[in-house]
């Protein structure tokens, strides 16, 4: 089984591989959640882990999210490094009390004496035809909670590299996995050792000088597509993949926007009170005199996530991004 590598791997496979490698490297790493064991998770990310490491290392828990996260806190207090799976975004809500009042605060509460090296994997976002409660983008809640790191990969390589980093982190990391990219592939080769990516660094995925698209997770491919389409309009768009919402990489983002003078934040999460507000505000604070136009936001509408048959209207798509780019007051320039 170790001879032929499936190449290229999907993001789900890369995540599974990261878990496996982390468990092999450190006996303190424990995976737990609903259906993560025998079934291998509803997205098969944890497939094979129970077989390889036993039920005590990859555990099917009772169906209770607060209990899952709460017991993981206790395990981390005893020195383990639990990796918890929340089955879907919306099913993490019952665990919010534990997350806000304990996970995010234990280090601070104890003046640094007790940290919680805990990773919380949350499949998030829409675009997979999921019925109600299966497509939420809840990153705004996590961002507003000091003490949490909030990380989300958009490429297969990052899925591996960032998850390894999250598990290695001595602080709790909410690791948001874009559901609709689970089956995406890129050039990542599971047979080659992949670098563990440091958390907190954004990356420029595409260089351009007309304007910056600031995005992350499920919206990265959409932005790249929009950037290609924008060439027809004469715009050469830069695309920044944040990868980490907390810590936020002001340096990379600011440098890009100062170069281009225009920016659009793109995400699936709702607009009002969503991540884009924070991002637009801080970019504006730092780049005010470089900006030719206000930083715009292309994001989900301010509605509960729609049913499958209507979700395409809700999700930020290429046209909506290009419309926003068009509104970046180009006339003013001429």
């Amino acid at each position: 089984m170790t001879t032929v590598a499936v190449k290229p791997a999907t993001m789900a496979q890369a995540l599974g591989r990261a878990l496996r490698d982390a468990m092999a490297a450190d006996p303190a790493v424990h995976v737990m959640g609903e259906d993560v064991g025998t079934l291998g998770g509803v997205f098969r990310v944890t497939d094979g882990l129970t077989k390889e490491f036993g039920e005590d290392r990859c555990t099917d828990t009772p169906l209770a999210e607060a209990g899952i996260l709460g017991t993981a806190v206790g395990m981390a207090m005893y020195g383990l490094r639990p990796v918890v799976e929340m089955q879907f975004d919306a099913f993490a809500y019952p665990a919010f009390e534990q997350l806000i009042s304990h996970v995010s605060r234990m280090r601070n509460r104890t003046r640094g004496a007790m940290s919680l090296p805990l990773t919380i994997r949350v499949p998030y976002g829409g675009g997979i035809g999921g019925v109600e409660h299966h497509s939420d983008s809840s990153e705004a809640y996590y961002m507003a909670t000091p003490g949490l790191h909030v990380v989300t990969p958009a490429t297969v390589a990052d899925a591996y590299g960032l998850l390894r980093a999250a598990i290695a982190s001595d602080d709790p990391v909410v690791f948001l996995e874009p559901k609709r990219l689970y089956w995406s592939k890129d050039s990542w080769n599971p047979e080659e050792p992949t670098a563990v990516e440091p958390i907190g660094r954004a990356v420029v995925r595409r260089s351009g000088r007309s304007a910056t698209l600031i995005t992350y997770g499920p919206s990265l491919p959409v932005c790249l597509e929009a950037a290609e389409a924008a060439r027809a309009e004469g715009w050469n768009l830069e695309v920044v993949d944040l990868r980490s919402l907390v810590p936020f990489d002001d340096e990379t983002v600011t440098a890009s926007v100062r170069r281009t003078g225009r920016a659009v934040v793109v995400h699936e999460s709702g607009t009002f009170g969503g991540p884009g507000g924070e991002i637009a505000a801080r970019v504006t604070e730092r780049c005010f005199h470089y900006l030719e136009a206000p930083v715009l936001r292309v994001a989900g509408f301010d509605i509960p996530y729609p049913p499958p048959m209507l979700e395409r209207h809700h999700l930020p798509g290429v046209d909506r991004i290009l419309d926003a780019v068009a509104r970046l007051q180009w006339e003013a320039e001429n």
Partner: protein
Amino acid sequence: MTVMEQRGAYRPTPPPAWQPRTDPAPLLPDEVPYRVLGTDAAAEADPELLRRLYGELVRGRRYNTQATALTKQGRLAVYPSSTGQEACQVAAALVLEERDWLFPSYRDTLAAVARGLDPVQALGLLRGDWHSGYDPRERRIAPLCTPLATQLPHAVGLAHAARLQGDDVVALALVGDGGTSEGDFHEALNFAAVWQAPVVFLVQNNGFAISVPLAKQTAAPSLAHKAVGYGMPGRLVDGNDAVAVHQVLGEAVAHARAGGGPTLVEAVTYRMEAHTNADDDKRYRADSEVEAWRAHDPIALLEHALTERGLLDEAGIQAAREDAEAMAADLRERMNQDPALDPMDLFGHVYDRPTTQLLEQEAQLRAELAAEERHHESEGAPR
């Protein structure tokens, strides 16, 4: 005065507040699930009820197979089948009066249909055109609830509210074995008992929460043993015996209606199919286990009892099947039509009156759709 000086007067007494408030014994469930079919009691069951249950079970099974078929045709986003659990689904529906309320979980579309909901409306959520395919007040069926156990406190609150208003309404709430692990299960049962709310909790213990077997979900002697911890009766029933489920639920509903408070009923049943059409149950259970349950099929059990009592013959079986086929044909046909969709619905029901923010977003989408339309027209392509 030191304690030494007081001592002459002092006599240890039992803790003043101590008095067990209810006798636990009657709250504990039977040792084995209560059954009617296959026992002597089957001979006494009301023939009319038996026939009615039978017809509904046959329809219910057909409904399940039809719905699963619709997922294959892309007409449903997903379907969690209740095949094998029809006795629970049907009995839960039939035991209620019109004024009562049903609180189904995501697997309980059949219960809603058996209560009289249009099957197409019942499948709205799973088809994906809207979250709730129906107006809950029309048939007094709460929206199908996906986050597990979270509708249980709603049932308690509704039943409590009805009682406060002087209405003798009972709420029946459905939850799975897995759902009993959630905090909301606990809080709902506790509120119900403290308020003596007229609510009945039916746990369909079908052995699994997706892939997780009951033994990893609880170490309790039975789920019905949880009841005593809230001060309500716990009842254990064979969930594949429609007559037994109907009777136990009926008693619980009557008890609740009479002001006796809530009951927890555990129905021991089995999920005969995979969790949903998207699940692969071969990964976590042996065929032999499934096979063992086939001999205990709820329809076969009832059919046997009916024929043994001479209440059903081949013609009767045939008639039931035809009735079920007709229902399935109608369902198929109607589900094969695309639902009428209005994207503007996205904005219309977030609040009583849309915020300006929502009006702006609505205008944006409207403009986009108009542009799309123009684009299609200019390309001459049919939409």
